[in-house]
């Protein structure tokens, strides 16, 4: 019968340290310290030793003896490289790492109203650009690791949740692969940035890999309950500038004809005031961690209800998780069961209201005083009294008269068996069986009297999607310390099988009263399978030199039997220079390590909308609305599809060289990484020679793309004493992206492929993919200005074809030139956390430099022709028209391409830790209060609402609100 042990763990400066792992040596029993640094362990055998460990601290082993209280002070670990890091298919000692891997754990996560997991680490990781979502509730970020390696295929990283690689095609109603995970359940967030780290995931790793592990119970844990609540208020920061009602009357008075002037109303309506609201949100979480006999467990439940600042928009998420980690046969068999489920209910507001609020005539009232069209003022056809279908719809009517609901259900689960052989404990066998099921159902209802769908009698439609993904992975791992030759080997070999099924039935569209309006189309179902064999060998000599090599052989059903297999090798080398005798005397230097890695990764994700059978000749049946008439019969048509029988993997070769450093007992630490990624056989959509295929553009393997860059990270701890502690971190990344080839037949005159559709006109594009330029470069005319700096309408520099400076006297599309790109050249993050006793404060600043933005709001609303038309209504526009005087929209002028460099304070937080608020024996209760402000300010010269636009075309983005939150955490 053992004793019950209690104690407190503190830092050297006396600050209690929560989250420290306390383990009974030689067992898997242990616990973690509470918010006040205290812990309790029951039934500790006499004579045991306890091991106290915490990231960044030197682990300590303490003999219990006959004590019942053991207090410990943990010192900072100058060799924090000791810790273990999650890598693909297992873990590695940080000091053995050869690749570029960054790991962030729970205590470093961003705080506040965090809906999606990736927002936890925004601004904290060099080389990882996380563009936050628009203000839409539940929106997902765009994640780019070291620039996008693909042109038309996906640039999203592979996400692996508790060992299950998940599908990164989104289900409708969920923003990205991470969006259904409750951020509160996440323990660590690890990014494999370079190929030597990621290549173990081979064909899916070209854009890097994100490994997420969720919180789990530990053997011997006491029952711990943790509850938290966070309330938030979201507010619109700025409105899009538009003409006031009086300015509008002036403009119509000057430029309109009699009929247009007669349309003017007498109201003064600020339409943006009408559509936005101050929104309240709540986030509630509860978790229970503990261990019943040999069964450590953690169960959690979360409820999030987020209202959007655009009226009616709402996001609601219920999430639950259960983790069981039983151990059998004297810990030889470890079983981990993870079950996660979530249900999301979205109410999507019609985001058309955002543009409509900019364009709607401010002299008109919100309500007409009539009962028709829901009482909203609408532009009508005077002849019929029906809505003018070309006119801007009443912005508030769009919100109030459309109900767009989606429910997404998802469950991810896996069971992992890890068996350490009895006769050969160095050898482990690991079997991982996982699933990822999701379904989404949506309905849209527009009442019959809504102007939006009046002519068809309203709308009642539904949609559904399912994803059914399965994973089976098995590997063997052998680790052996060969002390006699100062070596350590770590070898892994395995097999992976994954299957993905996507289905989407087709439903008829009904009118509001249930009459069929459009018949159902062709249902969608597609399936693909991935299969792989992989291996990794890690060899360390004298704890100083480490060599890692991986090899993966992948196959995908998306390509033909001749091209579907690919090899993905990598090699890495690390040298712990600090361990060398010649640096033993360098006391200030606490760590120095050199890493060099090279690897090949692949890509087989296809652009969305493409079938999973791009290599097969297929025929597609048309919908009932695209039939052709012969005689009195209509025929659904069968179309032969274009295909490329030789389609194969896209390959990215990446080189990484880095130095990790630490000084003054780790009070300054960080790393510098230099990388180059070259993608060849890009999966790119390019024009085919006319006549050679059954389409004009096809996805094929063509061209090369290059990303190179430098990442620098420094973390410092300038103040550390008994009461004060200050941590300051800074990271900066320079990335250069360039297309180096984009045609089957290399040609210096390749005009490139137009991309970047804008709003305004039809089919207008302002970006281009061209050899020698960054991806998504803007493709615009060079504006000519008068002496006063005013742009001259339609006057552009006559550049001639391919940017020659001698023009031909005509301005045609050939005079457009490549001007800047949406990709930031530099992005940086600056974080700081300060504690003073029980009080803490911190901030995260994030910035981009050299990202250009096409101001589509100005280009689309900034011409006099926007105000009047021959269609029977007037519309408002941007006051920018008063500066330019443009009569017609100059969509392709570089005047609208603006420098979007910015510095944003993402997060500012305050916390107060009350510590123990209840002292009932054995039932400590800790309370922590926090307050957070998100999106505090943005410093930029960009003239639009927000310079941070994924893709670089700013067009009525759902504005990101400023969010103020207050939270409470209670542990007992």
């Amino acid at each position, binding site marked *: 019968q053992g004793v019950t042990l209690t104690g407190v763990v503190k830092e050297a400066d006396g600050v209690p340290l929560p989250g420290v792992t306390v383990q009974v040596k030689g067992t898997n029993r242990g616990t973690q310290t509470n918010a006040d640094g205290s812990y309790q362990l029951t039934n500790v055998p006499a004579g045991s030793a306890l091991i106290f460990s915490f990231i960044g601290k030197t682990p300590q082993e303490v003999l219990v003896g006959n004590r019942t209280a053991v207090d410990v002070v943990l010192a900072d670990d100058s060799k924090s490289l000791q810790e273990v890091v999650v890598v693909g298919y297992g873990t590695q000692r940080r000091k053995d790492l050869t690749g570029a891997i960054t790991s962030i754990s729970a205590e470093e996560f961003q705080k506040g109203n965090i809906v999606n997991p990736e927002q936890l680490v925004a601004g904290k990781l060099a080389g990882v650009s996380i563009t936050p979502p628009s203000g839409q509730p539940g929106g997902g970020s765009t994640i780019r690791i070291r620039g996008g390696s693909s042109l038309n295929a996906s640039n999203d990283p592979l996400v692996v949740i508790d060992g299950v690689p998940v599908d990164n095609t989104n289900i409708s109603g969920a923003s990205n692969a991470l969006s259904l995970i409750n951020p509160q359940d996440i323990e660590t967030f690890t990014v494999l940035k370079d190929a030597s780290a990621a290549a173990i995931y081979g064909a899916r790793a070209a854009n890097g890999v994100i490994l997420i592990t969720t919180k789990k119970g530990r053997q011997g844990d006491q029952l711990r309950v943790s509850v938290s609540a966070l309330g938030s208020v979201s507010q619109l920061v700025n409105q899009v500038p538009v003409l006031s009602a009086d300015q509008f009357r002036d403009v119509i008075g000057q430029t309109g004809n009699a009929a247009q002037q007669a349309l003017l109303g007498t109201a003064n309506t600020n339409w943006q005031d009408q559509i936005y609201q101050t929104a309240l949100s709540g986030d509630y979480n509860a978790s229970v961690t503990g261990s019943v006999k040999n069964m450590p467990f953690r169960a959690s439940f979360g409820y999030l209800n987020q209202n959007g600042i655009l009226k009616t928009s709402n996001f609601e998420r219920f999430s639950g998780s259960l983790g069981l980690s039983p151990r059998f046969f004297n810990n030889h068999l470890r079983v981990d069961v993870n079950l996660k489920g979530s249900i999301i209910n979205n109410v999507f507001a019609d985001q058309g209201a955002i543009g409509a609020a900019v364009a709607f005539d401010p002299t008109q009232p919100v309500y007409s005083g009539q009962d028709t069209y829901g009482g909203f003022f609408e532009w009508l056809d005077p002849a019929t009294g029906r809505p003018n279908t070309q006119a801007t719809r009443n912005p508030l009517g769009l919100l109030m008269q459309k109900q767009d609901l989606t429910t997404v259900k998802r469950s991810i689960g896996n069971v992992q068996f890890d068996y350490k052989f009895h006769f050969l404990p160095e050898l482990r066998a690991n079997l991982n069986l996982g699933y990822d099921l999701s379904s989404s159902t949506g309905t849209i209802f527009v009442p019959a009297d809504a102007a939006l769908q009046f002519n068809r009698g309203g709308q009642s439609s539904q949609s559904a999607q399912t994803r059914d993904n399965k994973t089976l992975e098995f590997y063997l791992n052998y680790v052996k310390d060969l002390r006699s030759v100062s070596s350590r080997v770590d070898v892994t070999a395995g097999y992976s099988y994954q299957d993905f099924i996507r289905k989407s039935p087709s439903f008829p569209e009904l009118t509001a009263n249930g009459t069929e309006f459009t018949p159902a189309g062709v249902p969608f179902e597609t399936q693909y399978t991935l299969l792989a064999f992989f291996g990794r060998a890690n060899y360390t000599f004298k704890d100083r030199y480490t060599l890692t090599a991986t090899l993966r052989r992948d196959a995908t059903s998306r390509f033909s039997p001749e091209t579907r297999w690919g090899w993905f090798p990598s090699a890495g080398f690390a040298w712990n220079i600090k361990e060398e005798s010649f640096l033993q005397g360098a006391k200030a230097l606490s760590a120095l390590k050199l890493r060099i890695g090279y690897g090949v990764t692949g890509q087989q994700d296809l652009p969305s909308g493409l*079938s999973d059978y791009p290599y097969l000749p297929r025929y597609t049946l048309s919908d009932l609305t695209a039939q052709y008439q012969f005689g009195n019969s209509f025929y659904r048509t069968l179309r032969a599809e274009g295909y490329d029988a030789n389609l194969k993997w896209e390959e990215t070769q990446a080189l990484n060289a880095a130095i990790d450093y630490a000084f003054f007992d780790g009070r300054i630490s960080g790393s510098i990484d230099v990388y180059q990624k070259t993608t060849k056989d890009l999966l790119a959509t390019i024009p085919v020679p006319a006549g050679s295929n059954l389409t004009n553009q096809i996805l094929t393997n063509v061209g090369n793309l290059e990303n190179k860059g430098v990442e620098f990270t420094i973390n410092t701890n300038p103040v550390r004493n008994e009461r004060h502690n200050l941590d300051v971190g800074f990271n900066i990344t320079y990335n250069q992206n360039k297309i180096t080839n984009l045609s089957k037949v290399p040609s210096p005159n390749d005009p490139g492929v137009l991309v970047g559709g804008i709003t305004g006109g039809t089919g207008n594009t302002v970006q281009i993919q061209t050899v020698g330029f960054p991806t998504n470069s803007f493709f615009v005319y060079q504006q000519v200005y008068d002496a006063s700096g005013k742009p001259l309408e339609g006057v552009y520099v006559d550049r001639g074809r391919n940017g020659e400076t001698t023009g031909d006297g005509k301005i045609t599309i050939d005079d457009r030139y490549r001007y800047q790109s949406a990709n930031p050249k530099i992005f940086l993050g600056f974080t700081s956390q300060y504690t003073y006793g029980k009080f803490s404060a911190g901030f995260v600043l994030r910035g981009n430099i050299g990202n250009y933005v096409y101001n589509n709001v100005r280009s689309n609303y900034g011409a006099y022709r926007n105000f009047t038309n021959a269609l029977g209504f007037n519309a408002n526009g941007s006051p920018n028209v008063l500066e330019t005087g443009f009569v017609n929209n100059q969509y392709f002028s570089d005047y609208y391409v603006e420098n979007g460099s910015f510095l944003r304070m993402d997060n500012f937080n305050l916390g107060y830790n009350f510590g123990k608020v209840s002292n009932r024996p054995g039932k400590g209760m800790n309370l922590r209060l926090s307050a957070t402000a998100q999106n505090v300010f943005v410093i930029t010269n960009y003239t639009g609402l927000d310079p941070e636009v994924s893709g670089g075309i700013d067009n009525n983005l759902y504005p990101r609100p400023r969010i103020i939150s207050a939270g409470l955490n209670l542990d007992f």
Partner: protein
Amino acid sequence: CLQDLDRQPVYDVTSASVYKDPANYKQVLAKLYAVLAVSGQQGPAGKPDIAGIDEGFSNYLRQYWKAQELTTDEAVIGWNDGSLPDYHNMNWSSSNEFITAMYNRIFYMVTATNEFIRETTDAKLAERGITGQAATDARTFRAEARFLRALAYTHAIDLFGSVPFVTETDAVGSFQPRQISRAELFTYVETELKAIEEEMAAPRAAEYGRADRAAAWTLLAKLYLNAQVYTGTARYTDAVTYANKVIQSNAYALDADYSKLFLADNGSSREIILPVTFDGTRTKTYGGMTFLVHAAVGGKMSPTSFGINSGWAGLRTTKGLVDSFADPSGRTDTRALFFTDGQNLEINEVLNKFEDGYAITKFKNVTSAGQPGSDVEGNFPDTDFPLFRLADVYLMYAEAVLRGGTGGDAATALTYVNLLRQRAYKGTTGNITATALTLDFILSERARELYWEGHRRTDLIRYGRFTEATYLWPFKGGVKAGRAVESFRTVFPLPAADLIANPNLKQNTGY
């Protein structure tokens, strides 16, 4: 689990299976015709046939219409979408996305028809055990596919001149087709049309919407009438011959009322030799007639009287067309379907100024009884586009005779022209005498009779008035008074993208 890598499509069918069942053949044939009408497999948009451009824009008929009409005195468009204004300004370059889309649509038709022709050879039919009526039908379908390919290649000859050349012997794959000369392609199309003549249905014996022998003859007559332009060798006698075949088949007749030819129920017309069919609920597109009806409505025009929910306020005409009518009011010549209330005859602004230029009320989505079309929402018309109609054949006959073609005579030519004028004037008051029947009169009569039906550019080129200073219209060449432009603009450039993709191609002179 290695066999799991051989996944097969669930709803799509593979080429191997589609041709096993003869019932599928007509659906593949329907697609070939639908290439002209819709933009993809989902109506009105979705799963497009070609990419890289807005789907509605890219529609075959819409692009063909724009290339043939916006470049002339018959139409201006008020939208500054991409390089669209280049058409009327006559300063297009090889990067023009509309020209590129037209070219891609033509070659989409060519490769789609090639695929069907390749899969329906007699040998393949026998191999699949398709015999009897199914085999007979398949052969007729194959002849129609060859007709559609000839139609697309004729558009290529007319618009682009010398282009890449592929037939059913070129399997789908990654290769670079050879370039064929304009004259050589002319001969190929001529040979093809003559070869399929007998396999096609007799005039008006096919189902409505499908091409028959008369459609092939009309296309041949068109080719021959323009042979001087296409090949340097006049073929007016052949033009007379094939126009005669159409007329003398007596299968087609002029409709009584000109204005009813362009309404939602024009599918019952006996004048239309080959339509592109549309339907408000079953054949939906943002190109084709949807474009043609909506884009022409704006200003004080009432959308309801066009059977649509709204206008798009884009298309008007220049005074070049208006002035070709002695009386543009419509009171005498009923073909003058102009809308003038609130519209200015003179154009000062092309872009975004719908009032400048008369509007045209020719195409409507209402039936001859005044009822709106079948789409209750008023978006998609039922109106069919008359690609070939008898009036055009009459005028081709007359012109070919006047240009010296034998096998016809001037008196018959005069009769045919006066048939059109009697219909237009609802009596003989508009009839002309033999001396008035000149080549210039025919060009002008073609404008009056056939305006906005996709003929004008070809006609002006044949008459030497497209690029030249001899005939100017408002904003020809981008200036208000009009100006001559470079003579090389009688053909469009090959798209820059294809010149890169296919190094076998040589750009047209001047571009």
